[in-house]
């Protein structure tokens, strides 16, 4: 089980958190303008990366804040965490 460094609370056990899947998928501002294909792309299609992934986590049993994480999904090593709205770190 991971130790996650919540950007608001510091290091906490993984059991306090919930994962929220791939990050930086922005909800389309004008959904009605999209084709079914484009909408499905937003709704369901995922990179599901093996390797460095940018993903969302929620400190559900803590401050309840959502934040982003960079994690290597091949070995579960957490590389970085950053707040919602912040630019993802580059290496």
């Amino acid at each position, binding site marked *: *089980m*991971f130790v996650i460094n919540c950007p608001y609370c510091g290091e906490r056990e*993984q*059991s306090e958190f*919930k*994962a929220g*899947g*791939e990050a930086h998928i922005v909800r389309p501002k004008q959904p009605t303008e999209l084709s*079914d*294909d484009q*909408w*499905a*792309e937003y*709704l*369901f*299609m*995922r*990179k*599901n*990366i*093996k390797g460095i*992934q940018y*993903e969302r986590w929620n400190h559900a049993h803590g401050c309840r804040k959502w934040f982003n994480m960079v*994690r290597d*999904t*091949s*070995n*579960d090593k957490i590389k970085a965490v950053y707040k919602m709205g912040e630019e993802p770190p580059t290496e």
Partner: protein
Amino acid sequence: MKNKYSIFSLLKNALSYHENWEKAWKDPEPKKEYEAVIIGGGGHGLATAYYLAKKHNMKNIAVVEKGWIGGGNTGRNTTIIRSNYLWDASAGLYDHALKIWESLSQELNYNVMFSQRGVMNLAHNLQDVRDLKRRTHANRLNGIDAVYLNTEEVKKFCPIINTSQEIRYPVLGGTLQRRAGTARHDAVAWGYARGADKMGVDIIQNCEVKGIKRNGDCVEGIETTKGFIKTNKIGVVAAGHSSVIANMAGLKLPLESKPLQALVSEPVKPIIDTVVMSNAVHAYVSQSDKGELVIGAGTDDYISYSQKGSHDIVEGTLNAILELYPIFSRMRMLRQWGGIVDICPDASPIISKTSIKGLYFNCGWGTGGFKATPGSGDLFAHTIANDEPHKLNAAFNINRFVSGDLVDEHGAAAVAH
């Protein structure tokens, strides 16, 4: 078949100290070109190759496997087989598989130990009861054997379940599919490999796919750690790694790969002779022929390819096991492991062609793929050979995520996979 397996061949070979058994499958180097290549040497991939050769006369084909055959989810699952699914499309698919299971050992001349010891699904709240009754009615009308049991009948069928109504989530009833059961997972991979090999299929292990070569909208071959292999038809059956292969072809799939864990206890004499699944408190248990209690845990909520999950999930599962079977408290966990399961948003699989000609995907089986192995192989072979789905897998196309016609087993009922 030369070297047919039977008690007689065992006796005969005993005389020569078993030194004359043939290889169950060869270990060839890849040829330059194949009519079709299956990526992934698990049960589904090997079955696909078997049926391509057997039913569609495609014998110049290969299965390429990154590691060793049957080493992924085939060799890591809790081997539950059942077909009592709610939706017509799912029931059709899984019962097609179940029918093949019933004669698979004879078909393959390999004892896959399909044991129809019944699968029970328990209800723990009033909505569970409604959902399980709904499913039982649907099963009956689809010709699938399934009956609803009240609490006393549950207890009678599996006396070690704690059916006290005083527990936190008492057992209110359950369903039973008697034709359902378990099989020996490794034997399925090995049996299909041996069968496919005998028909000329090349099973190439330790061969990792590194790229998919495309010419416009058609596939031309695969780059592997054993060199380039030319082919016009690629069937991807890579389970947790499906997205990785898809990304090589420039496709995205509606999948997330997550850890799923399972564990076994030390072996004991027979104590539970059926399979019991409970979704509401999340505990599945059966007993293997060796005597180990085989227990399935749940998935973690994060994407991971590490084949490791969190301890909390295992602990939660055992909490539920002891809630339902307090007699198991002094039993001991012998082994615990994880697999990578590829999950679709509607918890149903994809057996489909794609926007790229010659590229086919069989994935998204989530936590329940083992039971479908023979049916999945058969239908995927049909889809690859004809470039069109069979009517039993038509509903499991990729396009359903665009049109909205999902096969939502997940949301539809308290059905554990």
